[in-house]
């Protein structure tokens, strides 16, 4: 290092607190750099190209993290420490608060377990409060649908598994646990309005649960059987547009389900892949292989060519479909394998692509497919990317 010769010796002089000021002659004619006061940053105004990266942290799963980045500058903006077993966070409709389901043990990996939804002020990335929830939060390989939020932001839902399935409901206004709703035989959380959420059932149906204004169970309904969990199961990686959830099967069948009413109404399935493509081994795949852009009504899906059982494999191609016209619009060739994608919500959308095994996030123009930037990690085991 070039400065070694000069700086190696410790000067016998300290100006801590400015109580002592050196009168050593300036070497240059310019005034000396002013003394600085260290401070803590707060975040500037929200940009549509900010994104969150949940880091599962494979080398230290009990010490997970959520990173915030600005895709335009490529800079990291801040981080949250979010306890054991990261899935995803929920965010307030105005992105002013981050709701993070977290798990802690009194001795790190042992002792008393405490699960929380922790409330972070997004502007300061500091804790505003926490709701202690039942210590049954589902964990494992991260899934987006392990939690959800009511459309109005009033309630956050957290998936439990013991292995019995239930959902912890948290009131975001009172920052308190509201109720636990059993969803026997049905897993994951797909919000369906301001006071309801759905869960996927092993018999090929969708259960829809309505809660009251206190977060307690009000009533339930169940869709007709709309997929065959043996012949061609749908994955947990669904996307929502308006009042419709779009579930995607291993073989790339899209199953739309209308959730406007309490009883979910399945629509007509359509296919992302042709019969020829399926035979050639094309499959949808990845930890979070689907994303949607509301403005353009476009569905983004990662495709690989690894054949059967490739539903978790990453791919180097993102296909873009018009979801209303059920047709392929274009294909984006990625510069690196991706298993996880997200698309910003604005009119100049960015496509974020990453993979748990690659400590980097790749930023593309979602419209042209151009690769704009690579943001090197850490995060070292990026799981879900989330957009404000």
């Amino acid at each position, binding site marked *: 290092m070039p400065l070694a010769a000069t700086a190696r010796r410790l000067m016998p002089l300290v100006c801590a607190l400015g109580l002592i000021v050196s009168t050593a002659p300036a070497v240059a004619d310019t005034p000396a750099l002013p003394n600085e006061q260290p401070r803590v940053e707060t975040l500037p105004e929200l940009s549509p190209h900010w994104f969150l990266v949940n880091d599962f942290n*494979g*080398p*230290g*799963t*009990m010490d997970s993290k959520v990173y915030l980045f600005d895709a335009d500058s490529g800079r990291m903006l801040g981080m949250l420490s979010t306890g*054991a*077993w990261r899935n995803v966070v929920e965010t307030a409709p105005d992105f002013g608060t981050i709701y993070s389901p977290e*798990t802690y*043990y009194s001795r*790190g*990996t*042992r*002792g008393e*377990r405490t699960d929380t939804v922790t409330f972070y002020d997004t502007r300061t990335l500091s804790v505003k409060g926490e709701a202690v929830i039942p210590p*049954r939060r*589902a*964990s*494992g*390989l991260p*899934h987006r649908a392990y939690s959800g939020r009511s459309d109005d932001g009033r309630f956050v839902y957290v998936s439990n*598994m*013991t*292995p*019995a*399935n239930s959902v912890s409901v948290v009131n975001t206004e009172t920052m308190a646990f509201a109720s636990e709703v*059993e969803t*026997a*035989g*049905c*897993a*994951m959380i797909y919000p369906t309005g301001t006071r309801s959420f759905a*869960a*996927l*059932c*092993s*018999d090929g149906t969708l259960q829809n649960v309505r809660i009251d204004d206190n977060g307690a169970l009000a009533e339930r309904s169940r869709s007709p059987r709309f997929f065959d*969990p*043996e012949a061609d*199961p*749908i*994955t*947990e990686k669904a996307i929502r547009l308006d009042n419709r959830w779009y579930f995607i099967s291993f073989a790339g069948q899209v199953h739309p389900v209308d959730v406007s009413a309490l009883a979910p109404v399945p629509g007509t399935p359509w296919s992302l892949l042709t019969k020829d493509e399926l035979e050639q081994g094309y499959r949808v795949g990845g930890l979070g292989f689907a994303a949607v852009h509301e403005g353009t009504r476009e569905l983004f899906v990662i495709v690989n060519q690894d054949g059967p*059982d*490739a*539903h*978790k*494999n990453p791919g180097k191609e993102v296909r873009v479909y018009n979801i209303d016209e059920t047709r392929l619009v274009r294909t984006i060739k990625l510069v690196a394998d991706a298993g996880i994608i997200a698309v910003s919500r604005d009119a100049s959308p960015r496509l974020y692509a990453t993979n748990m095994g690659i400590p980097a996030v790749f930023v593309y123009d979602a419209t042209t497919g151009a690769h704009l930037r690579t943001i090197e990690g850490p995060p070292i085991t990026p799981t879900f990317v989330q957009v404000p």
Partner: protein
Amino acid sequence: MNWFDQQVTRLTRQIAARTSRRSFLARAGLGLAGVAAAPLLPVARAYGASTPLDVAQDPGDPSQCDYWRYCAIDGFLCSCCGGTASSCPPGTEISPVTWIGTCHNPGDGRDYIISYNDCCGKSSCNRCTCNRNEGDRPIYQPAKSNDINWCLANTSNAYHCSLAVVIGVGSAG
């Protein structure tokens, strides 16, 4: 609910009825999972203790991801963490519930039912990551899902590594 699920559910209900410390299982309903085997036979093959016959019948290296039993695993191989394919490393706890796969043994041409119990109570071993998804199903079919942290019913849900335990012979299907 298919036949497989019915079997698992029925079995588990029997255990739940017999085992008070597993009372949580009684609540599991449709979403029930596979169950760790109770003592049946001594373990035939431990790492480094195999006989030539064993190797012929149970070929491959349990510390490698391509070992036949790992056809539906997703996790760290206990064989690389102080355990074997069927034994947890010292100081960990076997998950009493788990997921089930069916893998083809090239040594004898049979398909075997494999129980992928997790070893729990310590943080990730982080060695020999292995992800194979043959027959893996989504989480709403938990008995077949390797995404789930099966330490969910242990005293700690800290996940350390995964086993691949032979618990039966499947049909040649």
